[in-house]
Every structure is written in C-alpha cells, then in structure tokens.
C-alpha cells in the first residue's frame, strides 16, 4: 500500500487533478473579475464618449472591448464548468484513495476492532469521516488557495491604476480573507467539538434505546428516554445555531466590508481623477472590480468552520487506523495430518476482562466430525478466531498441522480452513458475486454444486435472474435461513480441508436442517474435518463426537447419538 501522502503529491494522478481544479477555480474567479471590470469600463467609456460629442462618439471603438466582454463571459462559464467537474472528480478520487488506504490499514488490525463497540455503528462513522476528509480539498483547500492567488492578482491590477486604491483593497481582502475566518474559527471551534461529542452521544443513546426497546417498555422509561433525547437535541441545536450565527454574521460582514472597501477604492480613484492621473471611464471600473474581488473571500469563514469538522474527522480516522496491526505472523505452513491440538489454553480479550478460556485442552484429528456445544457467550465462536490469529492467547498452545498458530503463515490458513462465522457477511450485489468473492476461480457448475449442497439451488433456479439475482444490501432480501445457506455455499465452494461452521443451520426448519447436514456430510471427502459450533441437538447425529465448552474448558460429552464410525 502506497503512502497516502504520495497520492496527493503534485506529480501524482490525484495531485495533478487537484492542482488543475485549483487553476480552473482561479481562472473562473479572474474571468468574473475581468468581466465586471471591463464592462464597467466599457459602459463608462461609452458614456464619456457620448458626452464628449458626436466626433468622439464616432471615434470610439466599441467592437474590441465588446469582444473582450464576450470572451470573458464565455471563459467564465467554461472555467466554472471545468472547475466543478475537475474539483469534484479530484475530491471523489481523493475519497476513494483515502478509503482504500485506510481499509488497507484496518484490514491488518485485529478484526472487528473498529466494530467491536455498538455493533458496527462505528463503521457508519468511519465511512462519513473518510468522506469528510476527502471533501476538505473541495470545501476548504480550493476556496482558500484560490482566494490567496486571485486576491493577489486583484490587488495588483487595481494598484496598477491607483496604488492607494490597491492598498485599500488589500486591507479589505485581508480583513475578510484572513482576520474574519480566523475570528470565526476561533469562536466556533468549541461549538464544533461540542456538536461532535453530543452527536456521538445521541447516536449512542439511540442505539441503546432501539436495542433495548423491550426493557425500556418494562421500565416505563420511554418518557425519560424521550426527554433525554430532547435535552441532547437542544444542546446540539444551540451549538449549531451558534455556528450558523457566526458563519452568517461573518458572511454579512464580508458584504459590508466589500461595499465599504469599494467606497474607499472610489474615494482613492476620485482623488486620482482630480489629480489628473485617472480618466473618468476608469473610475466605475475600479469600484466594480473591488466589489467583484470580494466574491473570492466570501466563502472563507464557512470554509474555516468546515476545516475544523474535517480536522476532527481526520483525527478519528487516524486514531482508528493507528491501532497496531496484528502481531507479525509467522511463515510456516501446516503439515499433514491437519490435526488441531489445544493445550492448557488461556485466553481473554483484555487484561482487565474475565478469562474466556482457561486451562482448556482439545484435540481434533483430521477427518473427524465434531460438534462444539455450550451456552451462549461461553467462547464457542472464539475458536476459529484463535486459529486465524484474530485473537491473541495468553497461555498454552494451539497447534494446527504441527505448527503453533502464532507461527502460521497468514496465507496458509484460508486455503485449508473454511470458516463460516456466526456473523458471516453477505456482500451486496448478486448471488454470483458472493460466490465469486469466496472463490474467484469457481466456474458456474461448481457454484451450482455448492448451492445444491446448501439446499439453495432450487430457490436460486426459481429466482428471476438465477445466479445474478440481487440480494440487496447485506443480503436483506434473503430470509435469515437463506442467508445462512448462501454463506454455507460460499464456504463449501472453496473446498477446504477443514470446515468450521458456526451455527450452520440457524434459522432453518427441521426438514431443511436435516437436508443441509446430510448434503454437507455426503459431499465431504473422508479426510476432511468438520467442526460444527451449534446449539441444535438435531444435527448432532451427523457428527462423531460432541465437545462442550463449560467453565472455560472443553469437555468431551459421552453421547450415544454419535454417528457410528
């Protein structure tokens, strides 16, 4: 993964577009300035010539300046269009690059670090934060840079006619382009931070409320919760109104300063005219020019406020990406037989949390079919995570194919072990896309075979678009059971030597459950290993032995239901 800074370097593809967008923004602003200045001059010059009598009027060549006006008007339109296209293009590229970069960082972290809290609410935040950072170019960078460049040009042009007017304009522009944004930013930064904090809190409250609706109902706490939301909303509203007041006030001030500066410029020009240094026709032009110049600085106070939002968002993204990546894994490959041996294992998520597993031991030989049962929250689902190095363990050993889990090469496991996690994610798009995500090399026949095993083939065949049927965001258009079966098909399609299935038949009715398990077991080669994490007793007959997790350990369960070997 390239470093982010190299992407936005002026020589990079995004950097070039960013500079191009900025150049077009400057061009559009300057064309606007030129247009107003030239038309002011044209009008006044025509009037002066008209006043001076018919000879002067005939001598006055209107064609050239009129052509100039037309040229500048066209230039302004084209440059504005180009500016918008190029800057938005650059912004979207920037967001994309930034997201790819941060995803590359996140993907090397312990899984679910970002989503561990609030069941994925952080993910939504992360998405909008990355967008906000990318938009800083469009909303902050371009306005400030264009104002700096164009401001200098405006002042130089005006000063070329009347130096003192140039100084007046420079003072006005500096007041609006530097002092006002600074002051506005200073006044609003605290409110911005307060909004961010309270919006987070409101978000958290809403999640709490909606996830705990039944409990709140029995506590009779609905009204209290509504009052709580009201209080939060009032705080946020006040802070945002403050921001709006500051921004609106600053914008109004820019308008006032613009006209006052124009008056100052006119006063200077008038003095110059009386001193004979300036023609009458040039005077309206300078006044209009001064007014036009302020169009470049008007958006700056708002841009300064946006900058703060972007800064906070950037900090959050950086903090999320700064979580240290998983400890460097080893480079060893597991050797046959692919036995799993757990010895005296101790594992907990954090030093201040309870042990999930302690002094736990378990052996699963290659080719065994094992059920792992136990109460919810007992640590059943951590087993796969431990093997893949998603969770560290503090005591004991886990060996897979004779190699300590920590020393396994990160690429070695996914090819050998197929895991269907409890929260297996279905990607938006078609059924085909999901299967292809699992196994990019699979052909259509293999896909159908996998669907057949998962008892989903009939459903897909009857669906309007077959394999290309869209399953909606996160597979929402599938029922829970269908989603589980598609996830199972994805894992089966990879033909792993080891299968770890977390609640594979959750949400299925009894008949389908039996069919799925029968199809699955029949499809496995005899040396393939199957570990089913489950609480469904109905699937135990398909498995050789049952292991229970209780009191932080694995216990062999003597069962008569096991399949005869």
């Amino acid at each position, binding site marked *: 993964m390239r470093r982010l800074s190299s992407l936005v370097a002026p020589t990079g593809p995004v950097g070039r577009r960013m500079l191009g967008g900025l150049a077009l923004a400057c061009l559009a602003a300057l064309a606007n300035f030129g247009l107003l200045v030239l038309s002011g001059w044209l009008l006044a010059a025509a*009037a002066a010539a008209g006043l001076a009598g018919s000879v002067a009027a005939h001598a006055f060549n209107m064609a050239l300046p009129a052509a100039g006006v037309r040229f500048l008007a066209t230039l302004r339109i084209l440059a504005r269009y180009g500016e918008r296209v190029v800057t938005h293009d650059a912004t979207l590229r920037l967001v994309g690059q930034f*997201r790819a970069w941060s995803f590359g960082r996140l993907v090397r972290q312990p899984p679910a670090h970002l989503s561990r809290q609030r069941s994925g609410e952080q993910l939504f935040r992360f998405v909008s934060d990355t967008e906000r950072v990318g938009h800083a170019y469009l909303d902050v960078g371009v306005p400030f840079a264009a104002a700096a460049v164009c401001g200098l040009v405006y002042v130089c042009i005006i000063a070329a006619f009347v130096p003192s007017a140039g100084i007046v304009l420079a003072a006005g522009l500096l007041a609006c382009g530097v002092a006002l944004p600074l002051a506005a930013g200073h006044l609003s930064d605290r409110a911005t931070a307060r909004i961010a904090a309270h919006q987070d809190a409101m978000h958290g409250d809403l999640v709490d409320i909606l996830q705990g609706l039944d409990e709140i109902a029995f506590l009779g706490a609905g009204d209290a919760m509504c009052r709580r939301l009201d209080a939060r909303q009032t705080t946020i509203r006040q802070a945002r109104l403050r921001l*709006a007041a500051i921004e609106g006030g600053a914008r109004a001030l820019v308008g006032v300063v613009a006209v006052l500066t124009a008056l100052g410029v006119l006063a200077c020009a008038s003095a110059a005219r009386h001193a004979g240094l300036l023609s009458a026709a040039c005077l309206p032009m300078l006044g209009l020019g001064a007014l036009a110049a302020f169009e470049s600085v008007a958006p700056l106070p708002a841009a300064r406020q946006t900058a703060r939002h972007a800064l906070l968002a950037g900090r959050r993204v950086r903090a999320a990406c700064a979580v240290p990546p998983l400890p460097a894994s080893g480079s060893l490959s597991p050797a046959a037989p692919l036995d799993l041996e757990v010895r005296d294992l101790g594992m907990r998520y954090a030093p201040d949390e309870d042990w999930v597993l302690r002094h736990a031991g378990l052996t699963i030989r290659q080719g065994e079919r094992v059920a792992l049962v136990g109460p919810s929250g007992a640590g059943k689902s951590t087993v796969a995570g431990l093997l893949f190095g*998603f969770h560290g363990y503090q005591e004991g050993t886990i060996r897979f194919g004779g190699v300590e889990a920590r020393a396994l090469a990160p690429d070695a496991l996914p090819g050998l072990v197929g895991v269907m996690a409890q929260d297996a994610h279905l990607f938006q798009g078609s059924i085909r896309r999901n299967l292809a995500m699992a196994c990019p090399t699979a052909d259509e026949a293999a896909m159908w075979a996998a669907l057949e095993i998962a008892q989903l083939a009939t459903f897909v065949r009857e669906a309007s678009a077959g394999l290309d049927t869209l399953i909606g965001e996160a597979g929402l258009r599938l029922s829970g059971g269908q989603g589980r079966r598609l996830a199972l098909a994805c894992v089966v399609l990879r033909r792993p030597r080891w299968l770890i299935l977390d609640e594979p038949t959750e949400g299925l009715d009894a008949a389908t459950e039996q069919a799925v398990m029968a199809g699955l077991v029949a499809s496995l080669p005899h040396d393939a290993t199957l570990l089913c994490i489950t609480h469904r007793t109905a699937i135990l007959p398909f498995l050789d032995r049952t292991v229970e997790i209780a009191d932080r350990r694995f216990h062999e369960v003597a069962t008569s239901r096991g399949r005869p070997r």
Partner: protein
Amino acid sequence: MRTGDSGLTGLASRAGRWLGVAVVLNGAAAAMLVLQLIVLARIVADLAFQSHGFGAEAGRAGWLAALLAGRALLVWLADMAAATAGMKVATALRADVLAHLLRVGPLGMAGLGAGEAVTTLTDGIDALEPYVAHYLPRAAMMAVMPLMILACVAGLDGWSFAILACTGPLIPLFMALVGYRAQAIMDRQWTQLLLLGSSFLDFLQGMTTLRLFGHARQAAAAVACMADDYRRTTLSVMRVAFLTSAALEFFASLSIALVAVVFGARLLAGHADFRTAFLVLLLAPEYFMPLRAFSASYHARQNATVAMRRVAALLALPEAPAAVAPAEPLRGAVAAIACADLSAGYDAGGAPVLEHASCQFLRDELTVVVGESGAGKTTLMRLLLGLLAPSAGRVVALDEGGQAVAGPWRDRIGWVPQRPCLPFGTVADILRLGAPDADLARLRAAAAQADALAFIEALPQGFDTPVGERGARLSGGQARRLALTRALVRDPAILILDEPTADLDPESEKRVAEAIRHAVPGRIVIVTTHRQAVIAQADRLFSVAGGALRPLSISERAAA
C-alpha cells in the same frame, strides 16, 4: 404520509412560521439591496462624471453604509430564521419518530434492524434540514426577487425591462426541460449510486469474512476499484447538473450582455445617462441570482425525498395495542401467575416452540426455568412478558384467593434481560430511568438489596459516577447487579430475569445469585438459567425440553 413527497409537504407546514419570517426578512433585504445599488450607482456616476470630489458624496456614502448595515442584519436574521426552521423540523421529527417507535415496541420493530432505524433517525433526518433551511426559502425568493427588480427596471428603462421580462421566464422553462432530463438520468442511476455509495461500508462490514477467505489484501484494491466506479457514476450525474447551471449562466450573461449592448449604443449616441445604465447593469445579475441559488440547492430536495421515504416507513409501523389502552389501576395484589395450556410458535405454519404448557409461579418463591438454548425458555419468557401472543391458552395473574386479577398487572413486572440497556449517564441516572422521582434513600435501599451498594459507593463519585460505554467501566457482574437494582427501584411485584449470570465468572455469579435470592420476599421471581449457582437457590424448578414444560423435583436438580 405514504410517500416521500407528501411527507415533504407536511415538513414545510411544520416549519411554517419560521419559514414565513425568513421569507419576509429576505424580501426586505432584497428591497434594501435595490436601494443600496441605487445609491451606489449614484455615487459612482457622480464621481465619474461630476467635477466634485469624494467629500461631496459623504452624505450618500453614509446612506449607503446605513443601508448596508441594515441589509446585512436582515440577511443574517433571515438566515438564522431559516436555520432555526430546519433544525426545529429535524429535532421535532426525530422526537416524534422516537416516541412512535417506543409506542411500536419491540415486537413491531422485530423485522427492522436497530442499526437501520438509527441511521434513519440520525443521517436520514439530518438530510431534511437543508431542504427546509435552504431549498424552501430559496424557492420563495425565486418569486419575490426577480419581480421586485423587474418593477424597478421598468421605472428606469423600457428597453432593458423588455429584454429582462422576455428572457427571465425563458430560463426557468429551459431549466425545467434540462432539469427533467437530469432527473431522468438521476433516477436511472440512483440505485447504482446507492449501491456503489454504500460499497465501502459493505466492505468494512465484511472485513472479517474477507480475511477468512484470504482475500483481505486484494480487498483494498477492490475498495479502490468500487470507489472509482462510484466516482464515474456520480460524475456522470453531476456533469448534467453542472451543465444545467452552465446553461443557466450562459442565458443569464447573454441577456445581461444584450442589456449592455443596447445601453452602449444609446450611451454613445447620448440618448441615455450613465447612472441609469450603470444601475440597470448592477441590478441585472441580481435578477438571475435567486435562480442560481435555487438550482444549487436542488439536490437538497432529492436527498430529502429519499430520507422522508425512510422516515415514513418507520412512522407507518403500527403501534402496539397495549400501549394505547387506557391504564386502569390494578386492583388487588398479585400472588401468583398461572400459565394454562399455553402453546406458542413464531411461524403460522411452523411447529410450535411451546405446547400445552401449564404451570404456576408463586409469590415468595424463586422459580427457575432451565432447558437447553432453543428449547423454548425465551418463548416462555416472552409469553409471560406479553411480548408474544400465545396461539392457545393464556397467562393470568391470580390474587390471594386464586381469582384472576383485573387490570394491567404486567405494569408490575420488573424485567432484566440478558444484556441490560445501560445508557451513558451517572449511576443515579441509570437507576432512575424507570422511576424518575425516586430519592437517594430508595436507590440505596434497592442497591443494598441487589448487593450493588458496596461497589457503587466504591466508585469515585458514588452514585454520581458516570458509567456505561463512555464512562467508568463496570464488570459484567456489576452491570447485572446495577440492572437488578434498577428493576428493584420500581418495587416490582413480579421479577423476571433472563440468564442473569451468563458470561460471569464463578465469584460474580455467586454474588448475583445471592442478590436475586435477597429480592425474593414479597415477590414472584422467575429466572431462566443453565448455571448451577442460580439453580442451587431455586425453590421450584421447571425444565423446558422439546416444547414441553415439566416441573423438576429438587432431587433432579443436580442433573439439571
């Protein structure tokens, strides 16, 4: 409120007063702008074509400054009024939707993920703000400002009036045509835009799955690829919008140029005076300005329509009937709860999860229900709580004489779920959620009963310590005891606890089990569990297996 559009109309009326204020202020500001331009044109003309210096214009400059300040104030006030309108609408709607969802209750919400509802409540409703704060006032200004300027120009110059009056209406017409086309493109790509727009979230959510597939590294490239597709699709839509406004600008400058040319010729011939020409040329861009502002905020309407559709979907959820029924006071004390021949299931055609279950839960007893997960414990619990309607049989509360108790006895239930909801706040806040006016003594008494007093007092600020996800961290056992305390503060006649000791270490488990035991006198206490520490405390034991409920004798306890 079935569709987004009719919902939007409702929005506008909600914000009526503030929007009205904003429009009136904007109108006044527009009038002052015209006056301001008149004075400015006068000053410029005088300075250029009269022989006197700037000092002679000091009076007019003063007028200009006053108009300027007045207009700035009016614009500022109008903006504030519009912003207030937007925020008021959003906050009121958010409160309404939440209150509605609370009335809908957990059963009505069952088909809907909490995450989705939260997104609608936050980002969705936020998208309505720009519509109210920007789109609506600008739409109103589009009618006010051009007419005002047109009237003004009519008094100044006939030719210019004719040009502006003819070109003005053409522009919205042309815009409507282009906008119609843009809308068609937008509609066609909308689904794809939504899909691509959420692809990053999709990848983030599927990060673990991708790693399990061993595709994590390629996925970063895929993220970049999807972002690129999104960029291309978005730009193709944006380009139409940008072209539209370029066309608008083209027509505007064309008509301004026309005004200027007509004036230029007459100025040269000496038929017109500079002041009028200058003023008309100052006014002409303002004639087109509202149209530009309006077209810039057009997408606000698009976003609002989509958001409103999602809000309307939440508001369309039917309210739970129990919440609507008038609460009549409960007569008599509850001495027992009886389940008679209860059957229940989730699918209409599916097998019942619980069949012909009959049992009694008595006061002053700790009744424990055991059973493997999935056997029907949760279903029994939901039936008791009234969260699920039985397909046959009934649940009744009995008084001391064995007669059914009339009235809303379920209000007297205290319920502690497996994962209690502990929102951010101080300990006292959390405890008072169900009883806002409970005094500290009551909180302390309940905490003592739930064995929570010692750890609460050991917290840095005692009952005023902020806890929860963003506050001091509680252990699993402490959180359970806090939730138990909260239920006890309401002094429930019936206490129902779902797996109160799941995920706890033996030491905390023992404490929680003992705390539950302390709560038994004077109450019906029902606990589901599979943990020995709680079973050991039971007075009465039921087991759920295969849809049947049967009592276990104490001797069967060890095997449970």
